[in-house]
């Protein structure tokens, strides 16, 4: 019993200290992004580009596959549900709002958490175990400036762009199904989508994906930096970072939607 309570206490303190670390990492990254150039220690653009390629461009094929499937799935479910009321023609409304406000930011976030968040955790973890982080520090190169800030900037730019692209793909997928099933032309479907969609709906989704991006980077970095116990430890923190990032994304999504949709 005593051990049980002790464990709860220890885990709570561990969790709180990770929040603190995340806040420090975020502050330091932003500090270097804005203040680095003035101190002649800029965040290197080529690292940002390299990260952006990895986070965004290389993820495009899988984003297309997943979001096309999501779009079609939503159209199928939408038509199935609305048929009860004989209102199949309104399927576009449901699909458009759920894709832009919920599905594509979330699916894209989860995808990037799996691809990039885990890679970041593994990379930082390996560098810590090989003393590469210490080597950077003693060379006068802040690891946060050199490793974390480029990833954060690239993520903040690329994840919303990727989500926007995912919106287009998912809506196209839904459109293809709707036009085949209901005999509506793709042009008429597009008109409907554009009429329904407001800037607010779009920004709601993209704003969320920006927050998801920050969460993915912070969780990956914190898990990587806290690695212990060699190669096995790296496996553990990689898994942990993906699970944490996905949980954080889903919970933040719920809170964000709750606060902004009432």
């Amino acid at each position, binding site marked *: 019993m005593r051990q049980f309570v002790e464990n709860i206490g220890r885990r709570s303190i561990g969790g709180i200290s990770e929040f603190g670390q995340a806040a420090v990492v975020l502050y330091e990254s932003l500090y270097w992004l804005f203040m680095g150039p003035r101190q002649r220690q800029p965040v290197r653009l080529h690292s940002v580009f390299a990260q952006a390629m990895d986070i965004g461009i290389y993820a495009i094929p899988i984003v297309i596959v997943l979001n096309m499937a999501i779009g079609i799935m939503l159209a199928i479910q939408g038509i199935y549900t609305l048929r009860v009321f004989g209102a199949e023609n309104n399927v576009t409304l449901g699909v458009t709002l759920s894709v832009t406000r919920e599905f594509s930011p979330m699916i894209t976030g989860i995808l990037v958490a799996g691809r990039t968040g885990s890679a970041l955790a593994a990379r930082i973890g390996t560098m810590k175990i090989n003393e590469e982080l*210490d080597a950077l520090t*003693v*060379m*006068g190169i802040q690891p946060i400036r050199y490793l974390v800030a480029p990833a954060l900037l690239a993520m903040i730019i690329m994840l919303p762009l990727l989500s926007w692209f995912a919106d287009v793909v998912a809506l196209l997928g839904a459109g293809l199904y709707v036009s085949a099933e209901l005999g509506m032309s793709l042009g008429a479907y597009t008109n409907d989508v554009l009429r329904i969609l407001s800037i607010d709906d779009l920004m709601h989704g993209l704003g969320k994906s920006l927050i998801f991006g920050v969460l993915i980077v912070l969780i990956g970095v914190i898990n990587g930096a806290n690695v212990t116990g060699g190669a096995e430890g790296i496996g553990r923190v990689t898994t942990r970072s993906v699970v944490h990032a996905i949980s954080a994304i889903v919970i933040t999504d719920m809170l964000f939607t709750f606060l902004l949709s009432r």
Partner: protein
Amino acid sequence: MDTVISVRDLVVYYGERKILKEVCMEVERGEIMVIMGGSGSGKSTLLRHLLSLEKPRSGSITMLDREISSASRRELLEVRKKIGVAFQFGALLSSLSVGENILLPLQEHTRLDQATMEVMLRLKLEVVGLAGFENLMPAELSGGMTKRAALARAIIMDPQLLFLDEPSAGLDPVVAAALDDLILQLRDATGMTLVVVTHELESAFKIADRITVLDQGDIVASGTVDEVRNNKSERVQNLLNRRSEERVTDVDAYLERLTGTRID
């Protein structure tokens, strides 16, 4: 002679365990100071504090006329530009080639043009005997080559002070001897100050001007090679003659450890 590093009453705890007990030492300009000690003696901990990778519980470390245990980030950066460090396992960034690794400090801290940097790179590669290997990745290097590449990266900024962590550990005797010669040549050519942490006796006696012997967080001897060799202290002689330590057996404590319960 002026003092480059001065450590005063350095105390370090890991949790409840006292790792360094009021350690004091000084390193003079241009000398090779070897910090020697067995595993768990606290020598790696001392090095990490000298590199200000960790903050001490109490005590002060002055390096190149700056108090580094309380220095601001900017002051620390100025000191770090003047020191070079070669880690035990090289710690080369695995995502960069050998050449990119060695150039990294120049790219981050200077505004030299690419051509000048390339010349400096080739110069340092010649010094450590790795000419022509700049395009290999760190994973493709042997143990000795990794240490040489790490050394090249450590000296690329022409530091005043060079730290070497176990430079010859894990190498075969021939490669280790060559690396010792290289260290001596380097000091003679540049006049830099070196701090070498090692547990290899032979290497220590060959390169050292002065030796500091650490044991269980205490400095048990400090002086020239001959002074340390002739030190009468049992702990020093055990280390030098590779004798295992006589363990003092406390019967009660031993029983407590075995049974896992307190005996009153």
